[in-house]
């Protein structure tokens, strides 16, 4: 079946095309097309996955374009990682398709929404099947397109417009890095194929300096897509999109593409210590950085968005620390619990029609399905033992301890503390306490609850693929058996547990039991609070530096264009015109002047001749 893996992305593509053509006629029924298509994809992907579990990598290529002697190809490559991602993406996508039927019901552009979802799913599935960098880049941009379209789905909102634009442009900055890195690699190896590139690293055709440069450039692409510092600012704004989109694209799949890319190119990264350190540092910094901002957000989706950034930072940290498996493991569990959290948040928003957590409260009883499911997600992300997040986070911490710099390890621990704190701050604010005028809030339809339920189960179960106790199935499979569990000290797991409970306890103190004043921190260090609320002023810094610089240059060039370039042309025209006027005026109508001019001409010629003696030039 692996040789037919290329069919998997085609179902959502078909759904996209069909809905584009007929969606307006089908209206609400469009959802079935999308759900059916993604279901087929999911089933097919599972078949491929099962096939791959027992088999070996399959690769097939077709000509895309020939350039002189070089043939660029597109194809599919079913490695363990790819098969895994394929199934993961198809699964989450299908769940979100199902969920959206309820969430988006009644929207005027319902079919458009499903069309876009189909496009995105197609692109994401295509991305994870890519056997070469070029194809990866193509789909890389296409997932960006899907994200862009869906963020801007509520096109009439100025915020959505701005957010969509920002998302596209910020990720594009990263993409250009990706593109440059990829092209540099191409001229070193004359191929975009992962295998060829890895081989070139192996046999030393690729100089270390060039490798470092190229992979760091490619990593910029990953930074952009995965919302890592400093290109993260688009991701919180992307929450302007419909919530299912946030769950699918901006939590579970697309933003993880950066992690996927680094993982797919892992042998290349491993060849460069500098690159690995860069990845780890960016990851670690982003993890703590985003977590601190998450502490003070009041929009439910933005809290989750910063949490996503922070968790992605974790994954990068894992990659940088050399633990490919930990990163993918966390990617998987994160996909489940973060999708769950977003869908649950969507359910809450659906119920109370606001995203501001300060206007929520006491929803535990009103949302009997959503609330426990949200709790599961929160426990999982906080790293409470026995939940999926615990195992994957533990793996990352272990890797950071053994391979990474100590500082990054402690940053990761601090981030874990903050994570459990802000997650439970969110939980308590939304679900506990007094209900605040949401009399009509009620649980959503089954089509929304069911996907959450599935994700809830997975948020617990997926952890057991890779535990210190029951073996490390995922690791062994992903690395073809070469995996060995990091011999990390046992106290790390204990520390992680303590930290996670500490965070929850603190949140309970402040928001659950309200034993501590909420403004405990902000009252003491108001400027820190302000700093966090303004997201470390990153957006402002960009506006004042990059944006204003570009606009200043642009204005300068506008003047150059208008006055210098056009001016020179006008000057030339003016000179000709002035000469015309002068010549015309010189023609004064006096016959004798004409004769005099002639005689003067003759005299000049004779004089010059007399002076030069015939040597004119």
């Amino acid at each position: 079946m692996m040789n037919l893996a290329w069919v998997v992305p085609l179902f959502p593509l078909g759904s996209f095309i069909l809905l584009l053509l007929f969606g307006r006629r089908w209206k609400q029924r469009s959802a079935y097309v999308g759900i059916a298509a993604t279901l087929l994809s999911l089933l097919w992907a599972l078949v491929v996955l099962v096939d791959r579990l027992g088999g070996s990598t399959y690769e097939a290529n077709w000509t895309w374009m020939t350039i002189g002697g070089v043939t660029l190809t597109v194809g599919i490559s079913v490695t363990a990682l790819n098969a895994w991602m394929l199934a993961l993406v198809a699964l989450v996508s299908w769940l979100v398709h199902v969920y959206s039927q309820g969430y988006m019901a009644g929207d005027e552009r319902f079919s458009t929404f499903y069309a876009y979802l189909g496009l995105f799913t197609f692109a994401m599935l295509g991305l994870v099947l890519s056997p070469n960098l070029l194809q990866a880049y193509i789909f890389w941009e296409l997932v960006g397109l899907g994200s862009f379209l869906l963020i801007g789905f509520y096109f009439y909102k100025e915020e959505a417009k701005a957010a969509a634009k920002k998302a596209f442009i910020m990720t594009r900055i990263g993409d250009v890095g990706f593109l440059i890195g990829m092209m540099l690699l191409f001229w070193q190896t004359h191929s975009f194929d992962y295998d060829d590139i890895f081989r070139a690293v192996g046999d030393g055709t690729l100089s270390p300096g060039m490798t470092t440069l190229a992979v760091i450039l490619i990593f910029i692409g990953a930074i952009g897509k995965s919302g890592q510092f400093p290109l993260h600012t688009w991701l919180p704004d992307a929450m302007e999109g419909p919530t299912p989109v946030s769950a699918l694209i901006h939590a579970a799949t697309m933003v993880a593409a950066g992690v996927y890319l680094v993982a797919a190119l892992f042998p290349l990264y491993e060849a460069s210590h500098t690159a690995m350190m860069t990845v780890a540092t960016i990851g670690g910094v982003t993890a703590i950085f985003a977590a601190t901002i998450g502490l003070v957000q009041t929009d439910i989706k933005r809290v989750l968005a910063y949490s996503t950034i922070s968790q992605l930072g974790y994954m990068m940290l894992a990659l940088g620390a050399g633990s490919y498996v930990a990163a993918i493991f966390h990617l998987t569990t994160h996909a489940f619990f973060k999708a769950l959290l977003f869908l649950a948040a969507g359910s809450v928003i659906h119920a109370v029609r606001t995203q501001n957590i300060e206007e929520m409260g006491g929803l535990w009883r009103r949302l009997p399905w959503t609330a426990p499911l949200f709790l599961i997600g929160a426990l999982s992300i906080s790293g409470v033992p026995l939940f999926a997040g615990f195992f994957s986070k533990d793996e990352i911490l272990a890797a950071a301890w053994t391979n990474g710099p100590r500082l990054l390890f402690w940053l990761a621990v601090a981030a874990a503390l903050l994570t459990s704190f802000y997650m439970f701050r969110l939980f308590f604010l939304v679900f506990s306490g007094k209900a605040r005028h949401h009399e009509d809030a009620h649980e959503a339809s089954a089509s929304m609850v069911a996907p959450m339920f599935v994700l809830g189960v997975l948020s617990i179960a997926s952890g057991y693929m890779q535990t210190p106790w029951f073996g490390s199935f995922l690791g062994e499979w992903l690395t073809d058996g070469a995996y060995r569990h990091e011999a990390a000290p046992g106290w790390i797991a204990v520390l992680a547990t303590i930290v996670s409970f500490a965070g929850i306890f603190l949140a309970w103190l402040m928001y659950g039991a309200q034993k501590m004043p909420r403004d405990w921190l902000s009252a003491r260090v108001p400027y820190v609070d302000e700093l966090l609320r303004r997201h470390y002023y990153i957006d402002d810094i960009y506006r004042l530096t990059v944006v204003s610089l570009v606009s200043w240059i642009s204005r300068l060039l506008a003047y150059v264009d208008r006055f210098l370039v056009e001016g020179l042309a006008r000057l030339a025209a003016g000179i000709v015109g002035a000469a015309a006027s002068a010549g015309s005026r010189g023609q004064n109508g006096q016959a004798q002047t004409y004769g005099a001019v002639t005689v003067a001409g003759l005299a000049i010629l004779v004089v010059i001749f007399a002076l030069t003696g015939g040597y004119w030039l």
Partner: protein
Amino acid sequence: MTLSAYLALALILFCIGLYGALTKRNTVIVLICIELMLNAVNINFVAFAKYGAHPSVHGHVFALFAIAVAAAEAAVGLAALIAFYRSRKTVHVDEANSLKH
């Protein structure tokens, strides 16, 4: 020696004629000055025919033709002047300046 003298005379006459043709306001005088220039040429021709490096009768013939042509030209010139005078009531060449620029 003698040739140079004739040539110098012709040149001077030519220049006088030219000066007059370019500066005099009265068209009749301008036309006469042009005649002067042509006559200067005739002196040249005749002088060359007699004292030139290759004396020959061609110079005389040429001078005769030049005289005839000059007469024709003067006649046409005067005719043009008369027509001009009829429409403009002036013989001043500098007032013939309605066509310009």
